[in-house]
């Protein structure tokens, strides 16, 4: 048993790709440049983050003011844009924020690429699982970083997100152990959002990247692979783009957090919006279980998908599931932006649409398999398999 697991891991480790380093042969295809770009944007956020730490003050009373100071006063340049002074502090903040946005965007796109091209199939299971964990840790970095500004949106986002686990106390059997509230209390540093919360979020925000960076560096040292296999020009271009956005659209600070007033509507960073809409529709226990199941599904999808082919049309069911996920992500995000939610009607509709679409997907899958079997029986060899990467 143990030996099997170890062999399995050893095999996957050899084919492990953290940032698509072994796919250099496909450098002409931007789809495979996502890996190095991911690493590049991550480095940008880490470097700018450390610079921000020089001025950032992690206290409930000082955080917002220190952010304002970073934005408007630190390192003023002899330059204004639309009447606003351009500051080095503001640029650093912009690079950190937009760098993080780029990081999350690319992580999402890369996950979709890996999914629709079935890169998670043997021997890519481990690479896929790490990419997926990376997305989750990236989102945790996002939400912990967001609270550091201590503005209205961030405050309520943190409170809502950390009230969700409290409902795990309602689960049968494990509920009475109160591990749900414990999760919340450990992250919040008490039963309320306060100073302890900022301190802990600050530590997590920094710690996640720090630990991952060390692990990744060890990996690169051992495999002697090239970290960023891209030419200098696009890298410089991306950096310039981030700087330009930071000047045109300075990172927002919003309004200082007020624990006695919730703004209407509350929004969050863009990658959480779809989740927010989902939370409106579902009983609170499912607000936690749903994403949990989704994460679980994502992690074990390499073992669920037993279809033969790698191309999307060769495994219809999983393609349908993926397409549905993309669609819901976009649709829910749009709905929350327009503040539309008819709670009596929508969940019912959505459930039905989901069931019908999944059933159709299953049907398609079965038909596809039958056709393949018939073709095999008739002696026609199936189309050549797409080559395995790596």
């Amino acid at each position, binding site marked *: 048993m143990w030996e099997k697991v170890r062999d399995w891991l050893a095999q996957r480790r050899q084919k492990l790709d953290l940032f698509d380093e072994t796919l250099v042969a496909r450098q002409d295809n931007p789809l495979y440049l996502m890996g190095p770009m991911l690493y590049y944007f991550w480095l940008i956020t880490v470097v700018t983050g450390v610079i921000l730490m020089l001025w950032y003050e992690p206290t409930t009373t000082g955080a917002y003011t220190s952010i304002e100071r970073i934005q408007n006063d630190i390192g003023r340049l002899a330059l204004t844009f639309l009447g606003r002074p351009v500051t080095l502090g503001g640029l650093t903040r912009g690079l950190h924020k937009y760098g993080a946005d780029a990081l999350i965007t690319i992580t999402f796109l890369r996950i979709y690429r890996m999914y629709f091209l079935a890169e998670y199939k043997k021997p890519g299971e481990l690479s896929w699982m790490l990419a997926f964990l990376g997305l989750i840790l990236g989102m945790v970095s996002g939400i912990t970083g967001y609270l550091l500004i201590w503005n209205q949106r961030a405050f309520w986002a943190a409170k809502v997100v950390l009230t969700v686990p409290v409902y795990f106390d309602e689960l049968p059997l494990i509920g009475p152990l109160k591990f749900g509230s414990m999760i919340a209390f450990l992250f919040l540093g*008490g039963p309320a959002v306060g100073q302890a919360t900022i301190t802990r979020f600050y530590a997590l925000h920094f710690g996640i990247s720090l630990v991952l960076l060390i692990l990744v560096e060890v990996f690169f040292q051992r495999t002697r692979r090239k970290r960023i296999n891209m030419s200098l020009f696009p890298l410089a271009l991306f950096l310039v783009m981030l700087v330009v956005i930071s000047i045109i659209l300075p990172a927002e600070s919003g309004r200082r957090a007020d624990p006695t007033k919730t703004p209407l509507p509350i929004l969050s960073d863009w990658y959480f919006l779809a989740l927010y809409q989902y*939370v409106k529709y*579902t009983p609170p226990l499912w607000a936690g279980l749903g994403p949990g199941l989704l994460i679980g599904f994502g992690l074990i999808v390499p073992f669920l998908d037993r279809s033969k082919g790698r191309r999307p049309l060769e495994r219809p069911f999983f393609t349908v599931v993926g397409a549905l996920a993309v669609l819901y992500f976009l649709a829910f995000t749009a709905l929350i932006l327009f503040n539309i939610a008819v709670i009596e009607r929508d969940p019912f509709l959505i459930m039905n649409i989901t069931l019908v679409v999944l059933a159709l997907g299953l049907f398609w899958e079965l038909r596809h398999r039958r056709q393949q079997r018939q073709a095999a029986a008739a002696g026609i060899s199936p189309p050549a398999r797409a080559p395995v990467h790596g």
Partner: protein
Amino acid sequence: MDTKPAEMMARRKFLKLVTTLPALAATAALVSPLLRFLKPNVEKFKIYAPTVQDAARGEVIAVATLREVANPWDYKYFVFTQKYPQYTPEGFKAANVPGVVIKLPYKITLYDPATGQGPWRWARDIGKTPKVTESDLIVFSRICPHLGCIYNFVPNYKEVTAGYGGYLPPPPRQHALMACPCHLSIYDPADPQLPGRVLSGPAPRPPRTFLYEIQGENIIATDVEPGGIA
């Protein structure tokens, strides 16, 4: 050298077991200290229900005068200060619980001394017996029982329809309502059977209530129903 292979295997397994067990035990022994590091008020070696220590301590305050809420649907916001343990070097830290006093158009039962039922059912759990049992004044905590946002008292139900996702209350409930900006839970403060009944949205229960007493002209909030994140 002359041991048989099968015997070797068995020995190896045994040795493995002998080394794994202490390692597992050591890990288990670390759980409790780790928990206590993250949450210093957990009792030693206690892993079960470690959050019971975190009961908040409220400070009794006058939240409104009777004159301020004399007419039906008058309401007043207030902030109740509660002390929660925060795991900072300073220890306890105050957190605020916003609340609202509402004058209803009719009297409702708050606590039935005979059966212990009613919105103030929870009073017995904290060892109190409500002095008021029936009243047209009710005091809610404004912390949404869904995920902890602060909901609003909305005097005109049309504003609820316009601003909170398009919910239109049925005619008997077309009066002031309470609505939460976060996920659009909507509550009826004046439901005679269940004040704060959830009319729409994901909230699992009505908002928590405050226990209050009337002293002369003043409405005094003494306790708030425990639970939730502040």
